[in-house]
């Protein structure tokens, strides 16, 4: 029995059952239909509209599509330094936050998994920040980053250290937001890793221990390879999540993008131009470019980690 349920690398195979197949033929599409309608209405249709609007100088405050401008919006976009600055911030945020948000939760998950007591406490502690809304996170961290009397500056001053301008420096602000994001979202990846760890059969470790393998050897030779699929999943989800960065930045910088736009990310650029400036056509062009960039990076990244996984 126990060997039968032993998950090799946990890929559930659903075996179609004869009796239910006919009912399922109708029930399947029936159950999916409500989703499909919403999907078409709120995802496919807006996407098509965005493609169309990106070729017009559509305005938020004027009726109709506006005047056809061809690829002019794209031309303006590609020659705008502010756009590239914002795109770079999104990419930079992804480059900095992704490795941290893979390695740290993995480390904590392995550490907590080895505890014999009180695992529930640490699981809860790591996951709790994740259930808070971004608005709360932004408020709390803005208070902590407050120059002079904020918690972090207070601690630094206590030890006689000077504090950097967490949210007032053009370069540091984005990193300050990376710290916030790591604290906020570490719990999600942590839980995925904990679940993955529970799927690794104990006997492997027991066998390794009998063979005299050290703790580090066990992690390197058993834990990491057995977590391969989870790591791939976390890596891909994290890259996509990081590329979508918006709410923390918008809330912490009060919609301003940080000092001298030092932390304005691509989505905020789109918001600024598409909504605030009312240039929906131009904003659509910008969001389509971001869409393509996310798609390309995600696929490239997926291919890369897949290959890595096979190599292990």
């Amino acid at each position: 029995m126990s060997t039968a349920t032993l998950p090799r690398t946990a890929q559930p195979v659903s075996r179609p059952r004869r009796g239910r197949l006919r009912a399922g033929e109708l029930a399947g599409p029936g159950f999916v239909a409500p989703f499909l309608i919403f999907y078409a209405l709120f995802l496919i249709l807006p996407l098509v509209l965005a493609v169309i609007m990106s070729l017009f100088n559509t305005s938020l405050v004027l009726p109709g599509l506006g005047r056809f401008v061809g690829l002019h919006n794209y031309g303006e976009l590609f020659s705008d330094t502010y756009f590239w600055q914002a795109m770079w911030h999104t990419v930079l945020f992804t480059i900095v936050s992704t490795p941290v948000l893979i390695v740290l939760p993995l480390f904590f998950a392995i550490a907590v998994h080895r505890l014999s007591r009180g695992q529930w406490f640490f699981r809860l502690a790591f996951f709790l920040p994740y259930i808070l809304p971004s608005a709360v996170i932004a408020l709390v961290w803005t208070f902590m980053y407050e120059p002079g009397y904020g918690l972090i500056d207070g601690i630094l001053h206590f030890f006689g250290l000077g504090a950097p301008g967490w949210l007032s420096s053009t370069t540091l602000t984005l990193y300050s937001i990376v710290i916030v994001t790591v604290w906020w979202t570490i719990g999600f990846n942590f839980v995925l890793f904990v679940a993955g760890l529970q799927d690794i059969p104990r006997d492997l470790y027991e066998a390794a221990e009998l063979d005299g393998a050290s703790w580090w050897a066990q992690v390197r030779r058993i834990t990491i390879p057995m977590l391969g699929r989870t790591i791939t999943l976390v890596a891909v989800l994290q890259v996509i999540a990081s590329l979508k960065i918006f709410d923390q930045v918008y809330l912490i910088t009060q919609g301003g993008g940080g000092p001298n736009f030092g932390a304005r990310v691509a989505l905020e650029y789109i918001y600024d131009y598409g909504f605030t400036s009312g240039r929906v056509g131009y904003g659509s062009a910008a969001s389509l470019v971001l869409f393509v960039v996310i798609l390309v990076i995600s696929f490239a990244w997926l291919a890369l980690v897949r290959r890595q996984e096979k190599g292990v």
Partner: protein
Amino acid sequence: MTGQTRGKAITDPINRRRFLTAAGGAAATMVLGTACSSTYDIAGGFVTPQSGTGNETIVYWNLLSGGDGSHMQQMEATYQHEHPHITLDSTVLTWGNPYYTKLAMAIRAGSPPDVAIMHLSRLSQFAPAKLLTPLDLGLLAEHGMTPADFTPAAFAKAHYNGRLLAIPLDTHPFVQYYNTKVCRKAGLLDGSGQLPPITGPQALVAALRKLKATGATPAVCDQINDPATPWRLFYTLYSQAGGKVLADNGKQIVLDRALAVRVLTFIDQLAQEGLVNANNDPAGGIALFQNGDVGLYWEGEWNVDIFQTGGLPFSMQPFPAVFGSGVTQADSHSFVIPLQPHHDAQRISNVLTMVRTLLGQSLVWAAGGHIPAWLPTRESKAYAKLKPQSNYESVANHVVYDPPAWYSGSGSNMEEYAGNAIAAVMLGATTPQAAYDELHASLENLSKQPVPV
């Protein structure tokens, strides 16, 4: 063994079913709740109107929170008390760009509020897009309001291309708060315990140095997450020196290099000498001044409530005339009637009655710091007695509004872009020349964009 551990991780189906039933019930209750009551109030959740339906409701949008918000609520309550048959449905939205974006979208979508608060500096965005209902002077007079009842500068600014589009409620300038205790210690106060007007750059620097010598922070201003304040400081000084920023409704940049660099150099000097602490966000600036160890505080007058409640020994006066004239950057809250899908004379009449009732309570509004645009209040004895609010009353006659453009005005892209460039100088992080170049480049970027209105 492994089977057991896996079993634990799977959610108990009974629990899940129970949860879904409960969640479904809750959702259904919420939907029913919404259907019964007619409005959703951002601040208070679902509310059921007290009385009235159809034309008997006035939907009123504003962006007034904090002290302003509670004053406005008090004024609304008075109106509601006098007009119990009409339901005033007031919605408070976030200040700045998001408010104006939502307002524009609501009007374009054909479901605008009946009346809304708008900064007069934002007319240059809404008027060309024809999003507002022009106001008829005759109709205004019928409801007890004539042009002579308003501060002339504000009333003039309420026009676009010669048409009246807004009814001004106030003028809210950039001002100077001062801590009387700290200023007395620095020997800056006169016999009556007031700070005499400071005129000229040397006098201001000298005063700040005296304050610094007492060990206090000479002056506080903020810039983190608040590009509007650096803009207000710069635009005040630059306008005092006689400079103009935009022309031709924003299509042209007429920023004067020599003048702008002169102003930025002055701001840089204050930063380099440690005379102004600008490393604050708005809440930080308030907290520092409230802590009592700061001489001067430069900000809009709307924080007066906070310091009065906090029992701080302070007073207020117009921002110093540093470069020549004493003009000061200001804006005005005003009432506008968004373009309605169907003309409804009764509804407009109801709105004008409401506006007139609120204007009649301008003294309540003035307590929050704003200079009433309603002259019967502004010229009243009661307002003159309102201290320190009436100290800077004369400023309303010497104000400079943000230059008109589709991208300018309160909390706009222009304030954001320009403010960002100026903030770097306030921190001493860049040279005045580099800041000028950046200021010019960012304005250029905005002015070259196709006009969306």
